């Protein structure tokens, strides 16, 4: 399948490379691709390709440098997916290089773990020490653990394969979408993700995806569709996210009830004969008659009871959706992260399947992506790339199910971002459980704070890398080619690992060195490109100058279409025809049609709520919180609570409240809003930091001991004006792991909300870690591994 795609797109790519210049309206200005100093405009800034890896969309863009410093990042206007647009995070990412609180030398802990005392050491010392530890542990190689959070392999997984350790755990999956969603899509369609074709659609049904804040390359197509095609956007969400607030219709649903709505809609569509029986009969494992029969038991009335959305409305939306023909369904964490998440994902996908909107213009398209190789030769995979997700890990360690000798952490911040974060901290602090802890983080994250040694990685704008993501109807690869040398002593993690490998295997006798034969990252990237089928030295060169490959054409500033030979580049649809889907049967394999009420929230008492946490446009988990322009825009996270409900419980706007879960409570401020379901409360993630630096802590005086003078930014020391850094909810969120996928079920925590008690102050968090452990024991009885 992937091969067919590639052949098709290669053809286009070749055509595009001889494209003649497009005739533009003479009055139009360029959409980008250059940058100038605001005063010294006659010295254009130096441009280098850049790949934003702050979120899994991997947008391709450029960095612009002046006087040896990156002054700006922006999208690449000829990039087929981003069309020149970076989101706020991408635009601000260049700051990470000059972040005053950045770690610029290997740091060795001097005091007790977490005491914040560090000593700078040389790379030689650092490598010798880490390599020594790894060498000692090689006899029991699986006792070397890696917690990986990168969206792609930055070399750490390769390292684990090199030494032969299977012990890789992950805080996120290396592709777009959560584990339950990926699991369903893989079973049903044979792909990990689908791409809603917003550009050509007339109708969008959105279940729990916050596209306008979390999926920016898609959002720009959504707005085009809203104005150009007058598409209708219908959103089901428990709260008014930006996407819900900009939708034509937003339906606040009871948490976890989307599945029954989707099934009821599917039922109506089948009954009214608005489905596409040919498609169902030809391309699915079901016959349309059978499907209609199996769906009959899901009635809108039942859906109304579970979700609160009137049956009449469900009927109306179902009919509108089916009659639109060009219609798409999109879903994300909002429905995945429930105990019934898999069933819900299945139900929502079904709506696209029965209406035949699979890989059609304006439907749910199959992903188009290049799989970029890694430098040759590749160590034999140990199977470590499996999707073992990390939430349960600290409990298992405590439970004696893992014997850890060395613990590596890369691009992940479980001490903040994972559920039961307080438990993570407890385990990471304990030298009995984690005898040696190495972090590669360039920033002093909540996790890095607890490390024994920190080997500072470079940041995005200093990294040479290639990447691809299925974010457009055409596949693409983009490159990051740094203009600047890494600051201070920062070193690309691949080079650090290479040196560790060389220290473990100095003469190559262990057979490890061969996999790390590149002399620098440049060579490693070249080798990777060379090894990728369909790519060549030329594509490498093209990417170095133009940032992205293949070149499909030039963007028309007015219509935002990519133009080649005067014509907009058209996407190919129905790519599954004739070869079929990459499932065992070659067809869409509809699994169970089921929905059950979420057992976690049977009968909520009046002051009980389902806690939902969510992402916001200006932050990307831990990756952005020390970037001043982003934190200036989003730094606090008051508790969203329905105004009517709050009034009844005597909670006023801005009042301090206690949010209590099974394991403990936190004290935060209430924000009374009309935009949330009365039985839900919402707390945004990404803020409420206890580490990272001045910006993240909202304290201009919190200078780190390792902060360097040359990195100082007077702007931060003098102009940082906010003092409320928010409160994170992850300490009070107990684990609940989806048994099928190992993913944390984030949106099911039941909490109570009450006015703060005397003595409570803003930001207090009090958690009983033994309760966290008890919950783990109750769920898994100690046999989770």
């Amino acid at each position, binding site marked *: 399948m992937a091969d067919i795609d590639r052949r098709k797109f290669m053809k286009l790519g070749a055509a595009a490379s001889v494209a003649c210049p497009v005739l533009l309206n003479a009055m139009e200005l360029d959409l980008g691709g250059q940058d100038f100093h605001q*005063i010294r405009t006659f010295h254009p800034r130096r441009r280098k390709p850049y790949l934003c890896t702050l979120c899994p969309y991997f947008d391709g863009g450029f960095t612009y440098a002046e006087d040896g410093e990156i002054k700006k990042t922006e999208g690449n206007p000829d990039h087929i997916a981003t069309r020149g647009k970076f989101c706020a995070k991408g635009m601000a990412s260049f700051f990470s290089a000059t972040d005053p609180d950045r770690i610029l030398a290997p740091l060795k802990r001097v005091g007790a773990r977490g005491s914040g005392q560090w000593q700078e050491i040389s790379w030689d010392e650092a490598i010798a020490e880490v390599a020594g530890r790894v060498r000692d542990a090689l006899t029991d190689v699986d006792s070397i653990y890696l917690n990986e959070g990168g969206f792609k392999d930055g070399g750490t997984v390769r390292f684990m394969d090199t030494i032969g350790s299977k012990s890789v755990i992950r805080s996120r999956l290396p592709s777009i979408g959560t584990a339950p969603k990926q699991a369903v899509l893989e079973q049903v369609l044979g792909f990990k993700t689908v791409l809603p074709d917003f550009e050509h659609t007339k109708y969008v049904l959105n279940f729990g995806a916050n596209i306008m804040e979390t999926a920016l390359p898609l*959002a720009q197509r959504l707005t085009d569709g809203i104005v150009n095609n007058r598409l209708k956007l219908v959103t089901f969400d428990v709260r008014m996210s930006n996407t819900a607030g900009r939708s034509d219709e937003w339906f606040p649903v009871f948490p976890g009830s989307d599945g029954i709505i989707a099934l009821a809609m599917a039922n109506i569509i089948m009954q009214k004969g608005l489905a596409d029986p040919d498609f169902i009969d030809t391309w699915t494992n079901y016959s349309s008659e059978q499907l209609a029969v199996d769906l009959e038991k899901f009635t809108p009335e039942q859906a109304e009871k579970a979700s609160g959305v009137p049956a009449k409305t469900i009927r109306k939306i179902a009919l509108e959706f089916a009659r639109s023909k060009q219609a798409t369904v999109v879903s994300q964490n909002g429905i995945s992260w429930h105990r019934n998440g898999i069933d819900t994902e299945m139900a929502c996908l079904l709506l696209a399947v029965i209406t035949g909107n699979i890989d059609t213009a304006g439907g749910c398209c199959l992903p188009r992506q290049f799989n970029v190789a890694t430098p040759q030769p590749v160590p034999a995979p140990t199977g470590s790339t499996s999707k073992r997700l990390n939430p349960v890990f600290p409990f298992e360690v405590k439970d004696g199910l893992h014997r850890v000798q060395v613990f590596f952490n890369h691009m992940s911040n479980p001490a903040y971002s994972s559920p039961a974060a307080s438990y993570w901290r407890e385990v990471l602090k304990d030298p009995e459980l984690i005898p040696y802890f190495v972090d590669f983080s360039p920033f002093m994250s909540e996790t890095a704070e607890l490390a024994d040694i920190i080997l500072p990685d470079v940041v995005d704008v200093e990294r040479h890398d290639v990447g691809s993501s299925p974010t457009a109807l055409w596949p693409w690869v983009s490159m990051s080619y740094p203009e600047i040398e890494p600051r201070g002593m920062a070193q690309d993690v691949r080079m650090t690992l290479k040196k560790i490998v060389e220290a473990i295997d100095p003469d190559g006798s262990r057979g490890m060195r061969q996999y790390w034969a590149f002399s620098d990252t440049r060579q490693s990237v070249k080798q990777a490109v060379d090894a990728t089928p369909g790519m060549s030295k030329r594509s490498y060169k093209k990417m170095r100058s133009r940032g992205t490959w293949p070149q499909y054409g030039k963007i028309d500033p007015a219509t935002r279409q990519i133009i080649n030979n005067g014509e907009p580049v058209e996407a190919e649809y129905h790519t599954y025809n004739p070869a079929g889907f990459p499932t065992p049967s070659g067809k869409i394999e509809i699994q169970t049609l089921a929905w059950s009420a979420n057992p976690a929230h049977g009968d909520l008492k009046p002051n009980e709520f389902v806690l939902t946490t969510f992402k916001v446009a200006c932050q990307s988990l831990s990756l952005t919180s020390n970037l001043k322009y982003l934190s200036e825009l989003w730094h606090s996270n008051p508790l969203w609570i329905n105004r009517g409900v709050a009034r009844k419980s005597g909670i006023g706007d801005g009042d301090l409240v206690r949010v209590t879960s099974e394991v403990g409570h936190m004290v935060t401020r209430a924000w009374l809003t009309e935009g949330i379901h009365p039985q839900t409360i919402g707390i945004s993630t990404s803020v409420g930091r206890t580490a990272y630096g001045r910006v993240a802590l909202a304290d201009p005086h919190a200078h780190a001991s390792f902060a360097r003078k040359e990195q100082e930014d007077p702007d931060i020391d003098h102009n940082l004006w906010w003092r409320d850094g928010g409160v994170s909810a992850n300490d009070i969120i107990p684990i609940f792991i989806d048994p099928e996928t190992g993913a944390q079920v984030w949106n099911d925590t039941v909490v109570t909300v009450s006015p703060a008690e005397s003595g409570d102050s803003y930001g207090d968090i009090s958690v009983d870690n033994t309760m966290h452990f008890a919950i783990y024991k109750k769920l898994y009885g100690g046999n989770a591994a």
Partner: protein
Amino acid sequence: MRERQRSYGLQTPGTRGVPGMKRYGMVIDLRKCIGCMSCVVACKAEFGVPMGVWRTWVKVADKGTYPNTKRIFMPRMCNHCDYPVCVRNCPTQATYKHKDGFVLQRYNRCIGCRTCMVACPYNARHLIPAKRTDKNLPKLVVDKCTLCIHRVKKGLVPACVQACVGGARIFGDMNDPNSEVAQLATRETLTVLKPELGTSPSVSYIGGDWEIMDESHSYLNRTTQLREEFNTYKRNHEGDAFGDIVEGESTMRQVSRNFGGFLRSIPHKAKEVFDAYVNLYLR
């Protein structure tokens, strides 16, 4: 419609509808704005705008009652008025109207008296704080959106337009009937901020919501959070104007805080004076 042809004092008159003249401006299509804040960050990055001041920003409002609610985003910036009050009132001609429609700032003339800030009905101007990242860029003078003239003159769209994810910001010459902005102006209903003032803004909106566009409304209907945060802002950000009123504080404390700020400004202003002196006479 008869167009006014007047200028304020020594400045270029407005060029709205004047044949052969350019009038660069922006149409902001609020149907497409998704509140991603890319424009805000892009503008800040382009000019190294310090924290606490903005050349452009996005106002956000929630409308309606559960469950019938909507969220509205409204980007704001200098309107590059055809009849700019800021230009008229500036005592040193530091701010002026460019013949192509830009209202610009000459940093080396600006004395930082902030008359233009008082004059601008749209709050589009700010005094650059004494400390900023790039010490070679101007400080303690008034600044504002330049409509990115440094890019436009090089054939590029403004930085915020470049960055606009939703494609909501559309830039061009309003006087050129072929331009997208001019075509939008005829095809769609455009609204401007405070039209009654006769400033004739060059930035207009499609799908503007009167409530969020209204000054009094903004004042009356802000959330408790916003008010509290504004108070923190006033307490912590060095404004160099010594007049911020923190709501809920007693007048005595206000006055003492303001004078305290005045006194605290002495060292950094003295440094500025000293630097200027060194630049002028000793270099």
